[in-house]
């Protein structure tokens, strides 16, 4: 994408387009990657609720895959995940391993 010049930027850096955070991909910041283990998922959607970005997809009311373009690897989803019978449905794995 061509970067705008100083004459083209909005005064005061005000963002005029709603939902434009989708253009800003933050996945490259990640040091740990959350892995979804569907067999332990109880579909509580806590991960979707707690995710501070939009890294968890929901399809037809059900937990779907991670969208790693927006996952910074903060681990909040893994922390909050109640899992099933003592097994977390989200676990963090180090990137690049």
């Amino acid at each position: 994408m061509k970067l705008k010049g100083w004459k083209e930027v909005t005064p005061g850096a005000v963002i005029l387009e709603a939902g434009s955070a989708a253009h800003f991909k933050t996945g490259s910041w990640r040091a740990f990657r959350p892995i979804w283990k569907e067999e332990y998922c109880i579909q509580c959607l806590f991960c979707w609720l707690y995710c501070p970005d939009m890294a968890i997809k929901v399809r037809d009311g059900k937990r779907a895959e991670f969208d790693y373009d927006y996952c910074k690897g903060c681990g909040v989803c893994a922390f909050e995940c109640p899992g099933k019978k003592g097994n977390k449905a989200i676990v963090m794995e180090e990137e690049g391993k």
Partner: protein
Amino acid sequence: MAKIVAATGNEAVANALRQVDPDVCAAYPITPQTELMQRFSSFVSDGIVKTELILVESEHSAMSACVGAAAGGGRVVTATSSQGLALMWEILFIASGLRLPVIMPVVNRALSAPINIHGDHSDAMGARDSGWIQLWSENAQEAYDNTIQAFRIAEHLNVRLPVMICLDGFIISHSIERVEYLEDSDVQNFVGDYRRVNPLLDIEHPVSYGPLILPDYYMEFRKAHDDVMAGVDEVVLKTGDEFEKISGRRYGLFEKYRIDDAEIGMVILGSAAGTSKDVIDGFRDMGIKAGLLKPRLFRPFPYEEVGSALNHLKAVCVLDRADAFGGSYGQLFLDISTSLYPFEKKPILINKIYGLGGRDYLPEHAEFVLKELAGIAETSKVRTFKEYIGVRE
């Protein structure tokens, strides 16, 4: 018809705010500004204005509330002095960076330590580079007139920047002077309806304020701010022309007093200019060609115009009511020096620091300076480039 009253500077500015009737005011008391907001809050309590008055717990909060209200789409005012302005420092840059036209009378007072409540320019000089426009006043009339014009300047669609209206603490804020008030309707017509730009409260057009801007864009926003600043003088002049039509009082970027044919000159901000003019008249009577330049628009500083107004002189003294510690000279001196640098022919410049912490600036101080300038003009010899005057050894 204008109404002539006896009023303090604080009272006159509070009256200007009443006439404008802004949407929101967030304020915290601090000497010597307290009387200004006390009077304005009485207008709110008495139902004379419709302003939403937000009482906050600090000046940091006052400016933060102003930022929120202005981003929301309101015409917003506050006022402060000294430590209060210092506490706002962080948020000053946010107000200007977000291009919010907040209006703030600053009743100039010295900074602590040692703590002092009296008139001095250290506070506003500390906010010199905050991206705000600064208009300086010599007396209560100018403080009143500058406050009204500040709304037009700040809210101009080519500007959209916050404005400080500077008036000397106690000397202007608490002295009772003759002031001409305009008719309420004339002031309201002059400032006009507030034009909202990208207001947060327009929920049909959602916007976001204050995003993180990384190295790929930060410089573009700074350059845009600098470019807007460069166009402010034109808006200030046009606003002054319009204001003259309703008031009969003329305002430019600075005031020139007997300077065009002068050989020696003083440059001085604020209330001390009045005392100096009186002394200059006495020197003129003695056949000494003395004059004065009093900056009004201090930020953005009109370098070219000021340089052109001073370059014909033989010797100039810049008087600063603050000191830029470690910068060798006072803040005003540094700007005057910069203004004159491009000219091949320029006066010898000296700097005096005066009146700190409310120390009286007396006619004999102006006489002392003018005599020294007359000597420099004659001999081209300078005793010292910078010194404190009115200070005990």
